[in-house]
Every structure is written in structure tokens, then in C-alpha cells.
């Protein structure tokens, strides 16, 4: 009995709090994306010189729907979001953070451009992939999973060089987890000369060919296209990379407003094999100066007047200056939804509540009629 209680207790803490959007997929520009997390937070808009509330989140690529064409995985993909918004025309900013298992299995593409700074590339992601331009340039993600390149029909140029100044923000450590397990049907792997000495964990150096910087430039120009390459070069460094989706902010201007800090949950999630769990949910640490309390929440969304936090199964509402809203019923609309569209009351509850209200109104009306009839 005691063991069962312990197991239940452990399971309770291991269950990730799943946001509404987690696992939802959408297709854009020939690629299928899966959302791993999403929130609404203020972002400073330099052009308009003001803060705007934006849906931001993280996605990974789970498939491709086109063939024989050039496909570029963008570092950020914009797509209409329905998360906590009534206005569905707003485009959410999703940071692309990974490539899912078998995402490009058996595909035939002219080119595939992969951004720097991915967190993972899943099992057999490029299995039997054919790149007709001849070279697939792969900036290795933090975690390269099992047999990623097996059966590929083109050269693979692994890019993790600091010598050639391509990705200053690339992960310091790259883990190849059985990436080269099946050695039978592997393509040729190339790195820039100096990179061989910086080969990360789990890489078999004997597999590597190395090439000079000029050869590398030629290949990238051919693979990415001259225009794209030159555009990258114009910035001095190759910054075609995903940036952090979440960042710290205050709900209002001024030092007295609650300060929200975004963190990723424990790295234990990253040890899970499934794609979506390799992108852990962020957690939001809220330092509320109004209440003087510091709390950690699984979910955070805000609008122009209030913000909502979720801890476990419980939702809390605050005004933007941090004052807790205790009368949550007053926030709900007629259909039982909160200002962020969350169905707080079920339809039955709303129906019952309306019926009770109507009964109460009827009763009050009857009482009023009786009072009038008896002259009170």
C-alpha cells in the first residue's frame, strides 16, 4: 500500500502540465510543425516604439509535404494562433527548435537549409533523404539522435565551426547519441579542417573527411544558393539561428510591476526519447511585488488588463500591477469563459447556473407580485 502511494506521488510530480497547444500541428511552406509550448507575453516593438502582446512559442518540424524543391527551415515561423485569443488573425511567433523523428524520411529535395541552434534532430530524421544539389549542410543540434543520416544519398557537411565564425551561439556541447550506430549505409561526412579537433561527444572521427575553407564556401554557395549565402555573409557572421523564444519581462512598465522570469523545466525532460519531450515546457517564475510572494507557474498569459497563471490544475488571475482577483466569477462571460477564452464553467454548469438564476428571478418576481397584491 505504501509503495502504491509512493508511485502515485512520483507520477503526480512527473506528469508535465500540458498547455492547450502542446502537440497541435500545422503546415506552412511545405513543412509540418508541431507546437511544443506557447504563451502570450509583451514584446518590445522597435518599429512602433511600444510594447505589444504577442503569442510566442516553440515548434519542431515533423514532416515535409513537398518534393524536388528547395526547403528552408526558418528559425522563426509565423502562423495564426488561437491560443488564448479571440482574434485569430494575429500571427504567433514560433521558434523552430528541432527536427522530429523521420521528418524527412525518404524525401527528395533540391536543397534543405537548416538553421543553427536547434535543440535536437530526432531518430532517422534524414533517413534515405536525397538532396539533388549534392550536399546537405547540417549545423548539428545539441542532441543528435539515433541513425539520423542512415541511407542518405548525398554528402553531409557538418557545420559546427567556430574557426569559420559561423555560429557563435552554437551549443558548446553536442551529443551524438548512436547517430552513427549503423555504419553500413552512411553518406560521406565532411567538416572544415580545424573542426575535426573539436569533434563533440559520440562522434567517430574516423568517419570524417575534412575540407578547406574555400571548398566549404563553394559547397555552401552551391547548396544554399549564392544569394542566400552572400546575405549571410553580409552580416559578418552566420546568424541564421533560432533565438530563445522566452525571455524575462514585467507585466507593466515600472519597477513595481510583477516581474516574470522564464525558465525551462528540469533537464530531466530532455532525457526522454520522444520528440515533444525534448522540448521541455517553460516555467514562469513570478515575483509579485504587490503580494510580496514569489511563485512558479506552468502557464502564463496576459492581456491589456490582467494576467492569468496556472499552477497544477488551478488558475489564478491578477491585475497587471499584481493584485489578485478573488472574484473570478465576475471575469466570466455568459458562456462560462474567462477573458482568455478558457472554458472555466462547463455548459451544464452554466445552464444550471442560468436556470438557478432564472428560478431566483422568477421567485423574486413572485415575491414582488405577492407584496404588491397584499399591499406591503
Amino acid at each position: 500500500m505504501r509503495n502504491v502511494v509512493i508511485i502515485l506521488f512520483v507520477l503526480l510530480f512527473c506528469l508535465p502540465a500540458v498547455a492547450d497547444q502542446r502537440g497541435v500541428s500545422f503546415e506552412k511552406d511545405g513543412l509540418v510543425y508541431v507546437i511544443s509550448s506557447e504563451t502570450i507575453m509583451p514584446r518590445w516593438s522597435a518599429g512602433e516604439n511600444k510594447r505589444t502582446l504577442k503569442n510566442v512559442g516553440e515548434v519542431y518540424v515533423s514532416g515535409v509535404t513537398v518534393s524536388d524543391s528547395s526547403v528552408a527551415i526558418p528559425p522563426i515561423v509565423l502562423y495564426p494562433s488561437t491560443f488564448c485569443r479571440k482574434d485569430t488573425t494575429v500571427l504567433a511567433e514560433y521558434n523552430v527548435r528541432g527536427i522530429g523523428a523521420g521528418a524527412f524520411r525518404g524525401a527528395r529535395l533540391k536543397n534543405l537549409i537548416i538553421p543553427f541552434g536547434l535543440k535536437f534532430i530526432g531518430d532517422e530524421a534524414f533517413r534515405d533523404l536525397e538532396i539533388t544539389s549534392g550536399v546537405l549542410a547540417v549545423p548539428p543540434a545539441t542532441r543528435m539522435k539515433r541513425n539520423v543520416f542512415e541511407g542518405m544519398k548525398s554528402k553531409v557537411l557538418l557545420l559546427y565551426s567556430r574557426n569559420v565564425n559561423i555560429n557563435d551561439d552554437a551549443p558548446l556541447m553536442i551529443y551524438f547519441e548512436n547517430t552513427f550506430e549503423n555504419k553500413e549505409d552512411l553518406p560521406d561526412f565532411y567538416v572544415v579542417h580545424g573542426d575535426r579537433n573539436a569533434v563533440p561527444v559520440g562522434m567517430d572521427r574516423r568517419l570524417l573527411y575534412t575540407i578547406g575553407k574555400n571548398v566549404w564556401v563553394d559547397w555552401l554557395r552551391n547548396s544554399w544558393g549564392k544569394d542566400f549565402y552572400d546575405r549571410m555573409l553580409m552580416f559578418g557572421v552566420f546568424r541564421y539561428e533560432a533565438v530563445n523564444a522566452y525571455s524575462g519581462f514585467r507585466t507593466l512598465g515600472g519597477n513595481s510591476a510583477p516581474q516574470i522570469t522564464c525558465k525551462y523545466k528540469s533537464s530531466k525532460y530532455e532525457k526522454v526519447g520522444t520528440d515533444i519531450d525534448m522540448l521541455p515546457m517553460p516555467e514562469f517564475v513570478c515575483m509579485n511585488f504587490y503580494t510580496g510572494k514569489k511563485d512558479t507557474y506552468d502557464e502564463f498569459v496576459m492581456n491589456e488588463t490582467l494576467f492569468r497563471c496556472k499552477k497544477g490544475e488551478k488558475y489564478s488571475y491578477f491585475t497587471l500591477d499584481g493584485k489578485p482577483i478573488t472574484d473570478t466569477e465576475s471575469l466570466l462571460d455568459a458562456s462560462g469563459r474567462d477573458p482568455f477564452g478558457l472554458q472555466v464553467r462547463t455548459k451544464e454548469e452554466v445552464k444550471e447556473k442560468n436556470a438557478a438564476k432564472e428560478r431566483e428571478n422568477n421567485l423574486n418576481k413572485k415575491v414582488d407580485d405577492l407584496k404588491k397584491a397584499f399591499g406591503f
Partner: protein
Amino acid sequence: MMRIAFTIIFAFVLTSRLFADGWSMGDVIEKDGISYKVLVSYLVVDRKESPDTIKGPDKFYCSGELMVINVDKNLKDVVIPPVVERFRVVGLTDSLFFGHEHDRIWLPELQFAGSGCFAGLKVGSGALVVHNIANLGDGVFDSLDADLIFDITKRINIGNAFRKKKEESRFVFSAPKGVVKIKTEMLKYIRGCRVYDDCYSATSNNFTKWIRKAFNGDEAFMKNALNDRGYNLGMRSYSTTPVKDKNGLLIVVSAVNVKGLGYPWGTLTNDYYRQSRYAVINKKNRRKLLYYQQFIPVPDATQKKGWYVKFIDKEKEVETKYTLNGKQMKK
């Protein structure tokens, strides 16, 4: 009278034997469709000989250094051996393979390859393998119609090997039409050269595959590598008397660069100049070292052992004769 006649006959036989093996500077040796020019020659003894067994002028052989000056255009496979008749092949002349077309080429380790040596060469197997070449001329691999594989184990002086001079005396990059390949571990030896940024490298296994392909996977052809070892160039140090003898001369032969006559490989093959040098030490007085340019063992029946040695200092144009026990002979 009989004694004089016997001496003359003996001397003739020995001298004829010496000249049979002898090549001197500037001579051309032709073998298997390849012509070699003797750059320097000197006398050595066979490795099997010891000071105790050197009992006459017939124990000395001609050795030295050769430069390849011509290769038959019609040869399908070209094998340049490291040694030809006790002469070491040290270099290739300018434009040696210019405009040639061969299926496979085997090269030994070399001291130099002249300017444009492999320029315009077409290799049927698709790759030219070069081993250690200490010095390279200008535009050595210009428009080489094949991949170039550097099978090196030490630093090479690339110089202007990948550059060629244009008419306006300006150097421009000149590379093979194919790619330059090298073993990854050896990249350090070409770091700093322009070709470093243009080359491919592979670790041992993959590099061996490249070389095997360059020789069309022909194991027999690849065994030419064994010729680089175990050849007999002869011993370059010897004594005129047995080891236990307290008297006698120790002779050490070498070839030296002569600056006054042009640096060797300065402009490589044209101004190439090497000279033999014999360092002579008397066993009685080992502190004194004498240098000569030429050494001639002379048969002489009047001597106790039947021969004596003669050295020539060409600069001073002086001949010096010694008996075998190291005593200077009167003229």
C-alpha cells in the same frame, strides 16, 4: 719485366671493371623508357663488405644522385624507381611530364621536382600520388588533369608550387583541375600554404582507399612502395685497412651543396649543383680531418697490398696519394 707486364694487365682489368660500373657527373642513363642524368657520383662499397674484406680497388662501386630528365610519352604506366644502379633518384627536371598522358605513375620520395614538372599531365586513373618531395618549383601542378594526393610524412617546401608567374611578373594561383587530397594527420605540414584552404583530407582508412583508387586497386603496382626500402646504395664510410689495424685511413663520402656554383634547387634543376666530398681521417691522428673532391683507388703491384689510394682536391688542383696504412706517398 714480367712484374711490370703483370702490373699493367692487373691495372687494366681492375680499371675496366671500375669503369663498367662508373658514371660520372653529366652522364645520362637510360632504363625502361626513362632517362636519368647523373648529378653527382662518388665511390661506395657494398653493404656486405667490411673493413676486413676491402682488399682491392675492385671492392668500390660508383654511386650518386640522379635526376629524371625524360620519360617516354608512350609509357602507359610510369614507375620511377628510387634507385637505379646504386644511384638514388633525387629529382625530376622542369616540365618533365608536361603534356604527357599516362595511366598510372609511381614516384619515389624525392628531393625536388622542377618547375611545371606535372603541369598539364593527364593521369588515367584520376589521381597522381606524390610522396615526400622536399622542394617544389613554380607551378608544379599547374592544370594537372587529375586529383593530387599528397602522401607525405613530413613538411614539404611548397614554395610557389601552386602559383605560376604571369607575363607581367605577377604570381597567380594555379592548382590541379581535380582536388588536392591529404591524410588528415598530415594537414599540419601544409598549414599556412594556400592549398590548405582548398584541400580535402581523410583519416587512414579512407585515405588508403583514395590511394588504392589512384592505382586502380592494383596491389602489384602498389608494391612498388617496397622498392623504397631495402635497396642497396652501398656504404658511404669505409676503411683502407682492417678494423684492428692501428694504421690506415677512414673515408666518409657525401655530396654537398656548392654555393659558389649556385644553390641546389635554388631555381631547382637549372642551377642545380652538388659535389662529392670525401672526408679522410688518419687512424693515427683522428683529430685531423682532410676533405677532397675525388677519390681513386689505384691498383699498383709495387705496393705491398697491391693498391694505394689517390685523392684529388679540384679547387687546388692537387693530387695526394696515400698508402693503405695512411702514409703519404711522394709524388
